[in-house]
């Protein structure tokens, strides 16, 4: 293992994910690194953020004197409204999500398998908090991007042949962005392909830290 490689920072991973945004996209961002993607939306395109608790058009965090307990995102953080915002109920919100009207979601994961399975909601033996809206998002959104560290804290690969943890979705992931590399596939019948490496990261290092089968 190369100790020299720095790989991408959390912000760089978010910026990389933001490159997948297109003008007019409706996007749902998960909690953690995915939330940072909002900071990297290219200036020349319009992207509308959806919050599954019932809002289209999420604005930035509010100024301190604008904080409103009735205006939160799915991470339960206070947010602000934009001129084109719209509110709706949870059934309508997941109608959008399940019905394929959201173009892209960016989510974190504990494991992604080479067949596109994702696990990000529970670890057997640990307290289960629940899947929230993650299962709905991976089942319904048109394009699923996972942003995660390439390996666990123990150094174990997270992009693996088959998930060991209970699944959040089966054969749903389109793209995996880690601190070291980007993997992508054109459809759910194809294998993932290594399409990009972080500066200073070698194909050998990625191969050494990845047990999933992928095309180079």
């Amino acid at each position, binding site marked *: 293992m190369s100790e020299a490689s720095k790989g991408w920072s959390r912000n760089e991973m978010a910026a990389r994910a933001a490159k997948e945004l297109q003008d007019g996209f409706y996007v749902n961002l998960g909690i953690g690194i995915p939330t940072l993607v909002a900071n990297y939306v290219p200036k020349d395109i319009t992207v509308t953020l959806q919050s599954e608790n019932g809002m289209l058009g999420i604005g930035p*965090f509010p100024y301190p004197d604008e904080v409103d307990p009735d205006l939160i995102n799915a991470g339960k953080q*206070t947010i602000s409204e934009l001129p084109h915002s719209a509110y709706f*109920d949870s059934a309508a919100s997941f109608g959008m*999500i*399940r019905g394929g009207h959201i173009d892209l979601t960016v989510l974190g994961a504990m494991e992604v398998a080479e067949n596109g399975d994702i696990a990000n909601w529970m670890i057997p033996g640990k307290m289960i908090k629940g*899947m929230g809206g*993650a299962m709905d998002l991976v089942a319904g959104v048109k394009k699923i991007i996972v942003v995660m560290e390439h390996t666990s804290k123990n150094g174990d690969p997270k992009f693996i042949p088959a998930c060991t943890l209970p699944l959040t979705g*089966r054969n749903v992931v389109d793209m995996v962005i880690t601190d070291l590399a980007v993997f992508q596939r054109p459809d759910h019948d194809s294998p993932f392909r290594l399409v990009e490496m972080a500066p200073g990261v070698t194909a050998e290092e990625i191969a050494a830290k990845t047990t999933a089968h992928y095309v180079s």
Partner: protein
Amino acid sequence: MNKIYPSAEAALEGVLKDGLLVASGGFGLCGIPERLLDAMRDSGVKDLTFASNNAGIDNEGIGKLLRTKQVKKMISSYVGENKEFERQYLAGELEVEFCPQGTLAERMRAGGAGIPGFYTKTGVGTQVAEGKEVKVFGGEEYILEEGIFADLSIIKAWKADETGNVVFRKTARNFNVPAATCGKVCVVEVEEIVPVGSLDPDAIHLPGVFVQRIVVGAPYDKKIEFTTTREREAV
């Protein structure tokens, strides 16, 4: 036909019974029926099952009824941020049915709309699908999820008129609409009751047909789980 009750306690009189299935609105602490939950706790009713996206936090929302052990089972999508919940759950004192958030919202809406079951892709191939019927439509697998038909709905709204037409404010709408529709009786707590004719008929979120009882819960001291702000640019 008077739908307005003087207190949360009065608004729940005659509808509380041990073992009820209660559908509750709210997302996190946003738009939860606080006064009605307080009144349920004070009533001592027990063995409740709650269909509610979350279980409150330690001493807020449904968390209050967990503390007093009035809850037998939760049907929820996310139950973090709640230590007493965790203790009871790990001790086997509390039953939990995890349900994906969108499936939960749709199950409530389905119950309210007379739909006992629907098929969804959500959860296919996961633990959520275990024991559920699988059916193929257009070459893809879907699982059967059942509508929730609750005994009682408790929700929190912004304003109601005297006939029970209701409006919500911003993201406090969330589960309150589907939860309201799926109960045999729906009790709504509001910040304000406004005269008939003051709500725009084109902008009613929950028509009065769904609302049996209304109580004003104001004043509210609304809780925030995570206050996040940005700095105001220097002028």
